[in-house]
C-alpha cells in the first residue's frame, strides 16, 4: 500500500471515529451542566464529576489531536516557508514530519508504559473508583497513531497552496 493510500485510510479512519469526539465533547458539556443544575436546583451535585471530566478529556484530547493531524490542521509559521522553492518545501516538510513522528512515538510509548503500570498497580480515581490505566492507554494509542500519521505525511507533498476561502481555512 503506498503512502498516499495509507494516508487516505488514516483520514477515513479519523473521520469514522469522529463520533467518539462528538460523544465525548457532548458528554463534557452535559456532565458539567448536570453537576451545576444538580448542585443549585436539587442540592445534589454529580458525584465525581471532576473525575469524569478528566477521563473524558483524555479520550477527547487524544481523538482531537488525531483528527486535526489527519486533516493537516496544525498551524505553522509559513512566512519563509511560502517563499521557499518547492523542492526545499518538500524537504522541510518531510524533515518536520519525520522529526515529529519520532518524538511523538517516544512520548506515546512512554505514556503507554505508564498506563500499563497504572493498570498493573490498579490505580483508581479516588471517588468513583474508575481505573485510569485504560484512559492513559487510549491516549497513548491516539498519540501513537498521531506519530504514524505524521510518518505517512512525511512522504506526501506539503499542500502547495492554502485555501482561498479564509473562513474555510479558519473552519468557521
Amino acid at each position, binding site marked *: 500500500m503506498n503512502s498516499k493510500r495509507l494516508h487516505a485510510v488514516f483520514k477515513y479512519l479519523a473521520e469514522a471515529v469522529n463520533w467518539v469526539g462528538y460523544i465525548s465533547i457532548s458528554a463534557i458539556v452535559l456532565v*458539567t451542566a448536570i453537576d451545576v443544575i444538580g448542585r443549585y436546583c436539587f442540592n445534589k451535585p454529580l458525584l465525581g464529576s*471532576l473525575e469524569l471530566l478528566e477521563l473524558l478529556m483524555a479520550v477527547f484530547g487524544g481523538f482531537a489531536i488525531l483528527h486535526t493531524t489527519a486533516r493537516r490542521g496544525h498551524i505553522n509559521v509559513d512566512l519563509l516557508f511560502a517563499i521557499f522553492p518547492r523542492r526545499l518545501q518538500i524537504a522541510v516538510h518531510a524533515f*518536520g514530519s519525520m522529526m515529529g513522528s519520532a518524538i511523538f512515538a517516544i*512520548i506515546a510509548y512512554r505514556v503507554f508504559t*505508564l498506563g500499563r503500570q497504572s493498570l498493573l498497580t490498579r490505580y483508581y480515581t479516588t471517588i468513583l473508583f474508575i481505573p485510569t490505566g485504560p484512559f492513559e492507554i487510549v491516549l497513548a494509542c491516539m498519540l501513537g497513531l498521531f506519530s504514524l500519521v505524521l510518518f505517512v505525511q512525511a512522504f506526501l507533498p506539503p499542500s502547495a497552496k492554502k485555501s*482561498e476561502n479564509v473562513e474555510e481555512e479558519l473552519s468557521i
Partner: protein
Amino acid sequence: MSPELIGALGIALMLVFMFLGIPIAICMASAGFIGLTAISGFHGAMNMVGIIPYSTIAAYLLTVLPVYLLMGEFADVSGLMKDSYRAANSWLGGLPGGLAMASIVGAALFSAVSGSSMACAAIMTRISLPSLLDEYKYSPRLATGALCAGGSLGNLIPPGIAFVFYALMSETSIGALYVAAAIPGIVLTLMYLVQIYVQCRLNPALGPRGRRTTWKEKLFATKDVIALTIVFGLIIGGIWAGIFTATEAGAIGTLFTLVFTIFKRQFNKRHLVQVLKNTIGISGMAFAIILGAEIFSRFIAVSRLAVGLASWVLSLNVSPITVIICIMIVYFILGTAMDAMTMILLTLPIFLGIMNALHIDLIWFGVLVIIQIELANITPPVGMNLFVVGAMVKDRNIPISAIFIGVLPFCFTMLLFNALMVAFPQLSLVLTRSM
C-alpha cells in the same frame, strides 16, 4: 556545556524549526525533548515527557477550551453575530463613522461568546463589508482597519481562548483572568469608538453618516442581543460571584446558545455536525500546541535559564514597572514580525520566571500579555487579523498596504490603551479583588 547555555541554544533551535515552517506543536515538543536529552540524558528526558501528555490533557482546567469553542460555534450558527451588528448599527449608524463603530461594537458583543480574534474578524468582515464599502462608500482604509481592530477584541473580551493558554502556562485561575479582562475589554471598545469618531469628524469622507433610525427601530434591534447579554452576564457574573467555575459557566453558556440556536430555527444535522467538527478540529490544534508548550516549558525549567535571567534582572535593581515596560516593548517589536501565539508560547516560560521573582501579579500580567497578543495581531507587517481581512477583500482590489495604513490609528489607540493598563493596574484588578 552549562544547562543555561543549552536552554538558550534550545530556544534558538526552536526558532529555526519555527521559521522553517514546521508545525508549532512539533517545533516546541522536538526542541524541548532534544534539550532535555542534552541535559538529563535520553532516559531522563523520556521519563520527564512521559508524564506530561496525560497530566496536561486529562486536566479539569483544560475542559474550558472545548466548552468555550463549542459555545462560540453555536453562537455563530445561530446568527448572534449578525444580530449584534444590526443592533449596534441601529444605535450608532447615524454618527460620523457610525457603521465602522457598529462593526467594533458588533465584534465586541460577539466576543462575549466567542474567543477567537481571527474568527471574529472574518465573520464581521463577511457581515459588514458590503454595507461599509458598497452602500455607504466608506474609505477602504477605515473600513478594513476597523474590521481588523474589531477582531482584536475577540481574545481580550472574555471568554478568550488565549487566556486558557496563559492560565495553563502560568498556573493562574482562568476565572480570575476572565473577570480581570472584562473592564479592559470595554475600555478598549470605547477607545476605538472615540478614535473612529474623531477621525471621521476631522475627515468626514472617511466614514459618512448612515441612516438615522427611530427609537422603535433601535429597541426592536436591541431585543436581538438580549440572549447575548444574558450569556455574557451568566459567564462573567457567575464566575465573579463565585457561583460557577469557568468551565461550568462555559457549559451553561453552551447549553444556552444551543437552546437559542434551536429557538432561531438554525438547529439541524448539518449545523450540528459542522459545530462539533470545528470544535474538535480547533481543540486538536490547541491541545497539540499546549502539549508541545508544556514539554518546552519543562525544558526551560530544567535548564534554569528563566531562573538565571530572573536573578540577573533582580541584580539590576530596576523597578518592576520598568521591567514590565521593557517586556511590553520586546513584545511590541516581536509582534511586528512574529505570529502572536508563537511569540507568547516562546517567551512566557522565561518571562513568567521574572514576574514571579519580582512578585508581580500574574493576573494583571496576563491581561497585559493578551493585550500584546491582540496588538501583534493587528501590527503590520505580520498580523493574523490583517491577513484574514486582506484575504477576504482581495476580490475588491484593496491592496494589503491600504489595510496596513488603515489599521495604524487603531495600533496607536491600542498602544495608548496598553500604557493605560500598565499605569492603572486597578482597571484589571478591581473586579478580581472583589471576587
